[in-house]
């Protein structure tokens, strides 16, 4: 029997994942969604204190096999976890990164200034 009018097409899979917006950043969700391009689309909605992510796997993925709903959810959660970790690393290391870049290339700026 047909169910709700908005069934996804038979060849694609839809999954919803939600996050507590007080502890999950939107930018990490965006970054994870970007990495998922070609495998699945991701739409992020804000609902109260949650982010709702609607993932639809591509019928014709650019790489890898078509993902089932559990695999897609797991993949997305892993990607988000990785992005959250990247954000933590960046917060702790951006300062010293700038120091190293200045050590590496700062002399060039000085030279250019001297040269007028």
């Amino acid at each position, binding site marked *: 029997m047909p169910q709700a009018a908005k069934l996804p097409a038979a060849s694609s899979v839809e999954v919803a994942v939600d996050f507590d917006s007080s502890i999950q950043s939107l930018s990490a969700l965006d970054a994870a969604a970007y990495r998922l391009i070609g495998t699945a689309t991701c739409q992020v909605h804000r609902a109260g204190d949650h982010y709702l992510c609607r993932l639809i796997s591509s019928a014709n993925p650019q*790489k890898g096999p078509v993902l089932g709903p559990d695999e897609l959810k797991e993949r997305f959660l892993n990607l988000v976890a990785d992005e959250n970790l990247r954000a933590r690393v960046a917060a702790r290391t951006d300062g010293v990164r700038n120091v190293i870049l200045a050590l590496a*290339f700062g002399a060039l700026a000085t030279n250019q200034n001297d040269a007028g």
Partner: protein
Amino acid sequence: MARFSSPEAFGAAAEDLSLFPFNFERAGVNQYLVANLVGDFIRLTEAELHKLVDLQIRPGDGLYEKAYAAHLVTGTNQKSQRQLLAARLRSRMSFLQQTTPLHIFVVTLRCEHSCPYCQVSRQSTDRSRFDMSEQTAMRALDIAFASPTARIKIEFQGGEPLLNFPLIRKIVAAAKQRSGKKLDFVIASNLALLDNTVLEFCKENDVLLSTSLDGPADLHNKNRPRPGGNSHELAVAGIRRAREILGPDRVGALMTTTEASLDRVDEIIDEYLQLGLDGIFLRPLSPFGFAIKTKQFAKYDARKWLAFYERGLRRVLEINRQGTPFREFYAALLLTRMLSDRPIGYVDLRSPAGAGLGALVYNYDGSVFASDEGRMLAETGDDAFRLGHVEHDSYNSLILSDKLIGAISSSLTQCAPECSTCVYESHCGADPVYHHATQGDALGIKPLSAFCARQKGIMGLLLDILENSPEDAAILRRWAAA
């Protein structure tokens, strides 16, 4: 009485530790591949990665030692590692000090082959209005000599450049007349028109020859139709003759991959081996020119090509294990990036991109392009990488043009989504022309990019060999040496 302190006396306290920047990627169940600021790789479990980020590590626990040697962690008040990273980073980026080393002169569009994948649009042999004029050539030489680098390479391309050999003579003579730069010359030719005159000229003027050799006869001829169907025969004869007269290190061959090549990498490599060539460059098919029109590009995706590449690389390693030195040149380039900090200016493997900064292309009609592929786009009506014209532009106006700056800055891997946090970023490059041609955008969406998939695939393969196959790893390490 001498008194010595135990190892514990020399370890840093937890509060004195700091993280250095690093990128990472999941690499399997409970495994991460981690790369530091200059691209040194180590593998960590998930637990180790979290311990590292939280600085829950101590001298003597094994993880501290791995992380310290890989410049992931340091003593907050220490100085040497950050100076070391800065010095290594500066070395890796120092290719930027050599702009623009390569200048390509398209001396004619005429050609007597009709290769389906050809990046050059064909014009039949008797139409001499598709030859570069001497005036254009001299203006282009002005621009080339205005580039700041002390050494430039002038490469003659076409069509078939030997169809305008008189102009090549003039350009070489004129270039040598000018002072101020060391010069290298290359002619990229199908060698069908190679005769003693050309060979003598090359020998006298130290000109390198570069030709195409796609594989055994049937494959090569299928890729390169020529009236007479003897492209392979002429190429092989040309290579042999040129090696004999000019010397084996003065002649190089490049293959181009088509769908027909994908199942035959062993034969292609054997063809190169038989001719005594010292290596092969396993290239992907470029999505330009006739390739797009004839749908060559659509015919295979990154996965198929990677399978082809892996098989080819393993065959090359086998040849080495059997005692014959033979390289895969793209792997050698990547390994130089991965195992040393020597700067590589290879135009397709750098960020900022090599378009314009690494090479300028002077078309037969005087238009100047940021790359060979950029010129091919123009043939299909897309001027995105046409920087100007020799009549009214100077080196500075070309290099500082909005088009070029826009393409280079918008495609920087250091700033791009996914690229900037990619574990392979230190060894990869921006290819704005490729991404513009395939996605309409200089940056491209990397998850959709076959360039990206290929880069990750090759580097993953090289890492796997370096980590798990000691004999092959020793061979690969030597490809990275100076």
